[in-house]
């Protein structure tokens, strides 16, 4: 168990100030940061360390669910560090609806770097807290995301292909 973060990098063809705005203003966030096919609902944004972004996401034909970012640190046009969790209408923290052992809060660090022709984003997600069950669950999840559980699924796939061709 090494509790490394899950990392995602992307370079956008847009100036740093504009990319920063799309990560720090609720109206902009609602335009891109929601699961496919779902629409952003109500939100409250308090963009300062200690403040929260409390937002509703509405699946088609269903009632909405809530998420919460608690801003831990903000370095203007450089970094946004937040605790991300599922939430309720009163902005409390709730467990993952599908996995009670999933960490209650995830630490998300977004770094912004000006590069040739645009802005690079590096997103790091890791587990918050010291509950061993939650840390183990996250670690298993991260390994699945980065290497498909040590090739177990790859091996399974090739085995299934062989069986089907036989």
């Amino acid at each position, binding site marked *: 168990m090494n509790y490394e973060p899950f990392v995602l990098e992307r370079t*956008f063809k847009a100036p740093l100030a504009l990319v920063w705005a*799309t990560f720090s203003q609720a109206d902009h966030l609602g335009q891109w940061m*929601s699961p496919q096919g779902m629409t952003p609902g109500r939100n409250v944004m308090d963009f300062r360390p200690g403040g929260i972004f409390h937002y509703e996401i509405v699946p088609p034909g269903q009632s909405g669910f809530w998420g919460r970012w608690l801003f831990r640190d903000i370095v203007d046009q450089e970094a946004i560090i937040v605790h991300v969790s599922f939430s309720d209408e009163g902005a409390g923290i709730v467990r993952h609806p599908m*996995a009670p052992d999933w960490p209650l809060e995830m630490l998300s660090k977004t770094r912004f770097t000006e590069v040739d022709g645009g802005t690079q984003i590096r997103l790091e997600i890791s587990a918050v807290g010291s509950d061993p069950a939650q840390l183990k*669950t996250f670690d*298993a999840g991260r390994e699945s*995301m980065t290497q498909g559980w*040590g090739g*177990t699924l790859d091996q399974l796939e090739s085995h299934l292909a062989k069986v089907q061709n036989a």
Partner: protein
Amino acid sequence: MTPDKLSLVFSALADPTRRAILAALALGPMPVGEIAKPFDISEPAVIKHLKVLEKAGLVEADRKGQMRPRRLNAQPLAEASSFVEQYRQFWEASFDRLDAYLQELQATEQ
């Protein structure tokens, strides 16, 4: 899959020996003695790991009894994998939308 079941799968997968056992069983059913061979641990220890995997629904015994051949049941693995894969997909899809949105914003500015 129920939340409790998903948690059992995650905690079963959190151990490297148990992941190695699953990788071995992906090649086909195996008796306990065969499963234990590559590992530097006793057969009773392997049986303990198998019990955790069985409880999570990842491994099944062909017949009753501790030493019976075990086989992989991949269904819970695929479901747990798709659960965490949602995080990657969520962010990659969001970044795709952000990319398009940034182009749109810049086009209207000009």
